């Protein structure tokens, strides 16, 4: 599964520019679904039909990553940028970005009032090697993602865009491993999550499932003096979300996930995330309301170029997802 993950995390796809990721996933899932289509918002929706006895389940992992968009090119050819999604300048200064065209840029920073202050977005600029506005290879409206290849660190994997290409990888692998299911399962690879759950909002409306599960990263509290105190760690299994900043998981959905994990001896953790949310929130509040939950992959350094997950957690996440889809849904 590591090759699948590597291909996905290294693909270009900031919010609104997911075409390349979608094309890649289409290849990866070829022959694994009964129907595959792309909807108005660019969501890739793959349907695995059941035997007619199950429920309508929607799974959602988002294809988009955070990035930047060029807002101005100055006379010397330096580009100013605006964030796409939650970009933290602290994590990006002097790093690199890559445009859809392949052009690479370095993130520079102006002089700061205090040398160790965290700069504002307006104090950053991109250096793409131009000498003037006229020979600058990028223009206003061009979009770039952060640039960092995937690397293995023991049993952990680190790369940009684990959020949420790792979720996409879990769904792709689940499609491969799922032998049979009684359910009508919609594997949705959604767009524009990072700018407001937009792809999930419209795809959930269209599918109107009986239950929805998002697959996304969550924070971990296992690093020195963690920014967020959390009982979630790497290598302790996928996390079953109880609550995050935008959603209270539907209790029976959470219970179904827990019971499935326990029945098969799959390690898992319960997750309460302060701040942040996922596609599950959008699914939960569409139409007249949909029961929803979230399967999370614990991740260090979220929204940085070195998002780090445990490969073991990912494999267990796939196992849990396949187990949930293989049997009946404990729906009250």
């Amino acid at each position, binding site marked *: 599964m590591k090759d699948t993950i590597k291909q996905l995390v290294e693909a270009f796809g900031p919010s609104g*520019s997911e075409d390349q990721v979608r094309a890649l996933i289409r290849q990866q899932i070829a022959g694994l679904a009964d129907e595959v289509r*792309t*909807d108005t918002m660019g969501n890739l929706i793959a349907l695995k039909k059941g035997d007619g006895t199950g429920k309508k389940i929607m799974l959602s992992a988002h294809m988009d990553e955070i990035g930047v968009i060029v*807002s101005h090119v100055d006379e010397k050819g330096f580009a100013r940028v605006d964030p796409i999604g939650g970009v933290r300048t602290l994590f990006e200064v002097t790093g690199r970005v890559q445009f859809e065209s392949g052009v690479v840029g370095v993130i520079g920073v102006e002089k700061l009032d205090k040398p160790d202050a965290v700069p504002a977005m307006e104090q950053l600029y991109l250096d793409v090697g131009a000498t003037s506005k006229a020979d600058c290879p990028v223009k206003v409206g061009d979009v770039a993602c952060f640039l960092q290849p995937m690397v293995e660190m023991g049993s952990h994997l680190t790369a940009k865009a684990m959020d949420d290409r790792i979720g996409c990888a879990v769904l792709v692998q689940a499609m491969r491993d799922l032998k049979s299911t009684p359910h009508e399962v919609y594997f949705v690879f959604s767009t524009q999550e990072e700018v407001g759950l937009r792809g999930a909002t*419209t795809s959930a409306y269209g599918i109107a499932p009986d239950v929805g599960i998002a697959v996304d990263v969550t924070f971990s509290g296992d690093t020195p003096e963690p920014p967020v105190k959390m009982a979630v760690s790497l290598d302790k299994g996928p996390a079953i979300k109880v609550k995050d900043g935008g959603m209270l998981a539907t209790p029976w959905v959470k219970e179904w996930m827990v019971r499935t994990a326990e029945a098969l001896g799959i390690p898992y953790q319960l997750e309460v995330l302060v701040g942040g949310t996922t596609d599950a929130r959008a699914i939960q509040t569409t139409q007249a309301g949909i029961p929803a939950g979230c399967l999370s992959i614990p991740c260090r350094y979220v929204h940085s170029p070195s998002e780090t997950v445990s490969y073991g957690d990912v494999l267990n996440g796939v196992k849990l997802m396949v187990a949930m889809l293989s049997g009946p849904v404990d729906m009250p």
Partner: protein
Amino acid sequence: MSDQTRWLKALSEAFGPSGCEDEVRKVIIEAIAGKVDECRTDHLGNLICLQKGTAHPGFKVMAAAHMDEIGLMVSHADESGMVHFAKVGGIDDRVLPAKVVRIGEKRVPGVICIKPVHLTRAEERTQVIPYDQLVIDIGVSSKAEAEKLVNKGDYAAFDVAFEDLGALVKGKSFDDRAGCAVLIALIERGPYPFDFCPVFTTMEEVGLRGARVAGYSVMPQAAFVFEGTICDDGPKEADISPTTEVGKGPAISVMDRSVIADRRLVQLVVDTAKAEGIPYQFKQPGKGATDAGAIHLAKTGVPTVPVSVPSRYIHSPVTMLSKSDLEHTVNLVASTFLRLTPDVVGQRD
């Protein structure tokens, strides 16, 4: 004055803070009389029209401009007859002192109070007075007299006359009466090769509320949104973006805080501009929010693109725009409409 600016004057001078758009709607209904096949007002006050197309039956294209402007609302009159107020929409408190407003159905004139400079201390003059410490003087000296003229909940709008300055015009609320003027002009140039659904929305300034329900009920296959948008093209010390510039033509949005524009529609507008020799610019990405934010997320999603007229000083009492920018915006969108076929926004892949 060209046709576009004829309606712009009436639109700009009409009274219409968010939730109180009746006078603006009246101007628009008069302007489009006989030019649309259907016209109705929904429960939130949106004016939803239909102009049947000459081709591609069933292909519905919506265009939206919002009727509401930023304004104030009376909260109470105090013992000395001064009127206290709340803000409706996003207003920088610094633009409030010393402005003339009109209040309520009787359009009672008032002045937002400022202490004469002679009486201020130096440090006061560098501070921003929060809006809830400002009052409107309507020329009475008691609560009882004030309550004869204004009521709690009365709306107030800035009182600014429209004037033609030559290349530019000035007036209040070009955000978004300029968009309304564009939409009226487009209706006049129709019909188009699709069912055209012009919608004049309400309550954009307080959260895109009219557009949210209008998008849901119209549910078009594509949508355009017209705004009078941020234009900060004055001289600057640093080489940074002016967001848009007066005189450089209609501003196409690639991304703002509420929407990432559909790239296929953006490309169509750009290709049309190049083919027709119409000037255009890209609005600085990431700034502002528009009705497109609500419309594009209706039901299963709507491909949407905002196209705007650069307007200086929006969300202050006086705004300015270029007549040629307004004309170019109308020309560009009308030409784009002629090239807009269902396959432009059809199956992606």
